[in-house]
């Protein structure tokens, strides 16, 4: 039967044990674990960027893929995390690890401020508001003294763990790998829970969801805030890795790239989003040889993907 999605008994956890996903996943994880032992600093650096995008795309996927909200200003939450952590360590001498909960709280507050009034709107309006929000955060960062203005914030402390200071590319590679795995675990747990299902109900039919007893505004706000929190944690680690951040790291382009990763791989499900994130990070590097033709080649590649795989490279089976 063609629409037989799963043949597991009702009590089994569906999807968890699909070998077609688990085996390549384990293989990818094994490669990821040993990569810095064989690769040079350049490759490790690119791979670290890829892991950063994995975290950001997984976070945005909660908002776009699960709850169906088009967010065009996601980099703003990434900025909130990076600046919160950066300012606290550089200006006030906070321990890096203590800045993470503060950054998460700041992202929650920012998420509520922007989400509570706007999530009542339907998707298209939300896109415009989030676009504006992204720009507002960037422009504020450009103009405040505490954020270092246009030249940015410098002298961010490197984190220490059990007396070991994270310094080299490899160290940050592993730190981002841990964060990416943690994020994937969190997403997977929530995706299969009551709230996760509520997001899908709201995404597929808002009115039916309301009619069945789901508070759609609360459900959307929770997805939005959870996405914000994940981006802020990624921002903390990003600030620590770079030791200097400037408003230009958090432009509209950055938001678009993250969204591109989510859509490219196939939004809604974790394997597709991870693939999309890695592609977004790798594509500019792979196409370095194309020189000035790079934007053209990128555009053609993206168009081809959207033409031939409209639901993404590794789409959600249900759509």
């Amino acid at each position, binding site marked *: 039967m063609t629409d037989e999605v799963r043949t597991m008994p009702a009590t089994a956890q569906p999807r968890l044990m699909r070998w077609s996903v688990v085996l390549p996943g384990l293989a990818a994880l094994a490669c990821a674990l040993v990569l810095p032992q064989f690769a040079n600093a350049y490759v490790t650096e690119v791979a670290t960027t890829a892991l950063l995008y994995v975290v950001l795309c997984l976070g945005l996927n909660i908002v776009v893929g699960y709850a169906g909200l088009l967010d065009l200003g996601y980099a703003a939450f990434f900025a909130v995390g990076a600046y919160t952590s950066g300012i606290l360590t550089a200006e006030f001498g906070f321990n890096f690890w203590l800045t993470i909960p503060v950054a998460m709280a700041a992202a929650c507050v920012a998420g509520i401020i922007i989400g509570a009034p706007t999530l009542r709107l339907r998707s298209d309006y939300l896109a415009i508001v989030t676009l504006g929000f992204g720009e507002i955060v960037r422009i504020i960062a450009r103009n405040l003294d505490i954020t270092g203005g246009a030249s940015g914030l410098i002298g961010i402390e490197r984190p220490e763990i059990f007396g070991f200071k994270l310094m080299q590319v490899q160290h940050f590679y592993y730190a981002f790998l841990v964060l990416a795995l943690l994020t994937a675990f969190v997403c997977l747990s929530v995706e299969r829970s*009551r709230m996760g299902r509520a997001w899908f109900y709201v995404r*597929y039919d808002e009115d039916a969801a309301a009619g069945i007893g789901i508070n759609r505004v609360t459900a959307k706000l929770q997805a939005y805030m959870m996405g914000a929190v994940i981006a802020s944690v990624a921002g903390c680690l990003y600030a620590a890795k770079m030791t200097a951040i400037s408003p230009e790291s958090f432009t509209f382009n950055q938001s678009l790239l993250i969204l591109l990763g989510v859509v490219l791989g196939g939004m809604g499900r974790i394997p597709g989003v991870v693939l999309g994130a890695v592609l977004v990070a790798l594509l500019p590097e792979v196409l370095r040889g194309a020189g000035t033709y790079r934007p053209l080649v990128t555009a053609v590649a993206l168009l081809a993907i959207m033409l031939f795989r409209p639901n993404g490279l590794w789409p959600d089976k249900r759509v």
Partner: protein
Amino acid sequence: MALLKVRDLRLSFGGLKVLHDISFSVEKGAINSLIGPNGAGKTSLFNCLTGFYKPKGGSISLGGRPITGLPPHRITALGLARTFQNIRLFKEMTVLENAMSGQHCRSRHGIVSAILHLPAQRREEEAIRAAGMRWLDFVGIQQHAHRRAGGLSYGDQRRLELARALASAPELILLDEPAAGLNEREKLDLVHLIRRIRDETGVTVLLIEHDMGLVMQVSEKIVVFDYGQKIADGPPEAVRADPRVIEAYLGTEE
């Protein structure tokens, strides 16, 4: 005791009056129907009862509690579930996931306990799943639990909507044209199912229906609408004989 009480309900869209001072009640444990020609305002009334439209005036109470103007999810949580005239399933999700959606307002664990995999959260998930399966079994589509809801036959989609609404543990269930698009055999099954809902679960049923045969067969009381006004209210035999009902359905002889 009246479970649902509607008093002087008024609704208008701009200058267009859709409902004029509607009053009626539904007794606990009853099977009642709302009938009337197309455009009489039946679905508008359902949308007022379930919070999708905000009435201009009047009051609605469920089990003695006022529900007028509350948002839909609050009304569902207070015990009023509905189905939709044009089936509104989550087509891309599985049949079981659809049935489980009704349990959302009867469960409470959120994001944090899901991330921490708390034992209480795991137990609640199991209970939600079990309840979903139980209601699929009740309407007779348990064997399709893991199929995509959009791939079900039309009749089974209607059953799934019922299972989903019942899973929210309502006191009153509103069925908006449950027989639309069903063949004769499926309609017979539906009559049987509606009776089982009331007899086996004690849930009160209020339905909107066009199929007069089905309405007369299943309802204990019928409320008749025409042009947004209530024109008759009573047991099937009385309603059938009411000259105003005959006029509304068949027109008058000039």
